[in-house]
């Protein structure tokens, strides 16, 4: 890594999976981490960081609530005196359903968390970055933000929207030292995907055209987020970094 400066970083959705692995990686390089999650288990991630000698706090937060997101940004500033980078990672994965059978509640939940949640986070973070002089944001999209999987229409729509919001914010604040990029992970071994990965029929369908033949470990995503949040990515803006073992190259 090119910078040894300790930064204050906000991460949503860090109870498990990609968010947890990334929070641990930020902390390992000396960053102060504010973890926001609706899932109280994310407190364990913060505790694990502190036990290892790092600095982290947990703030319970439902990203669909704009005011709650603001409290996380304020909490990061109160605890660590700064907010330099953010990883907007909280998301929900719906059960597969044909588009014509998707109920309103399911559609709204996906759009509220995966789309509006990221929007709320960017609003709060960018408002601060405009005052502080800049910062870096990384949003978790998905390969479903680039291609489509069957029976995942609300998720595909929301993740395409994350890619769109990322580009929109990147272009809008490009001259104000705010960089906004997205990652597009393929299938990752997380509690969110565990049921799928344990289903033989799903695995067969999933890996039919996935040439790597495996899912990523959450730790394999963390490096991409660290890079995009760092000054080493100073000219990288509005980009989508795909981490999918070749899934979208075919």
């Amino acid at each position, binding site marked *: 890594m090119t910078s040894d400066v300790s930064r204050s970083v906000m991460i949503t959705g860090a109870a498990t999976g990609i968010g947890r692995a990334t929070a641990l990686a930020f902390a390992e*390089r000396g960053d102060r981490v504010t973890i926001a999650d609706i899932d109280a288990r994310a407190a364990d991630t913060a505790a694990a960081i502190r036990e290892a000698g790092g600095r982290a706090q947990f703030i319970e937060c439902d990203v669909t609530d704009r005011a709650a997101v603001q409290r996380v940004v304020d909490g990061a500033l109160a605890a660590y005196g700064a907010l330099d980078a953010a990883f907007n990672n909280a998301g929900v994965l719906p059960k597969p359903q044909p588009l014509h059978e998707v109920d309103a509640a399911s559609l709204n939940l996906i759009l509220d968390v995966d789309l509006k949640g990221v929007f709320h986070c960017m609003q709060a973070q960018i408002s601060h970055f405009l005052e502080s002089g800049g910062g870096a944001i990384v949003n978790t999209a998905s390969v479903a933000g680039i291609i489509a999987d069957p029976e995942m229409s609300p998720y595909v729509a929301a993740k395409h929207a994350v890619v769109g919001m990322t580009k929109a914010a990147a272009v809008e604040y490009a001259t104000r030292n705010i960089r906004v990029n997205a990652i597009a992970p393929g299938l990752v071994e997380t509690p969110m995907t565990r049921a799928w990965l344990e289903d033989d029929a799903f695995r067969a369908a999933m890996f039919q055209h996935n040439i*790597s033949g495996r899912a990523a470990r959450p730790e394999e995503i*963390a490096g991409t987020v660290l890079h995009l949040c760092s000054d080493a990515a100073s000219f990288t803006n509005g980009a989508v970094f795909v981490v999918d073992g070749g899934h979208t*190259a075919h």
Partner: protein
Amino acid sequence: MTANEIFDVSGKVAFVTGAGSGLGRAMAEAMAENGANVACFDLDPEGLTETATLLSRLGADVLTFTGDVADEAQVDAAVAETVARFGSLDIAFANAGIGDPEPGFIHEYDSANWRKVVDVNLNGVFNVNRAAIREMMKTGGGKVINTASMWGLAGSSSVFPLPAYNATKGAVVNLTRELGLQYARSNIQVNAICPGFFLTALGPYDDAEFMEAVTGFTPMGRVADPAEIKGTALYLASSASDFVTGTALVIDGGCMAK
């Protein structure tokens, strides 16, 4: 794996074409700064000497090869010599490239100029990828990083016409996808970087009108220093990108997002 180990390339052997200046020199520096040994390949012997001096000061072992990437025998020989001297080839940057010798519209385009650009920008990348991957198949893995361009993803004539450059860079992007798939199960990651406007010899950046056009096109409102490619180079050369293959990373200050 700690955060620092994720980006570690110490003890690795890197081969960089177009290392005599610009992005290639920055990529070579990024490798040397992080503990790799570097073989540098370029047409320009003076540029190579300057790069080698920089890398040696960083403590790297350095080899230099004056040659043309369009000549497969020269590329094969350089890769073979690199392996003979350094013991392996872990990281290859197929970075050498040229712009259209006479930028212009296709109905007036000179065939020799077209073939020249195809020879360097596409055939050169083929030569380097083939030679490097042959070695990586023997050792069980590696990283190939091809320099494409944002003009491998979009036409350029809203700013200036570069038909051969754009065609070849688009080909590099799709060759990268194909090779990413071909070697996905061989532990060889093949990826492309798509730079936007970087302050290199490839464009007339000392021309005020050109500078105004390119900064106006770039949302960040500036051109990049070549050093700003180092982070992406290190990311794609290190284990940070072990699940990343067949992709094209845009480093363009927001140009392709608009």
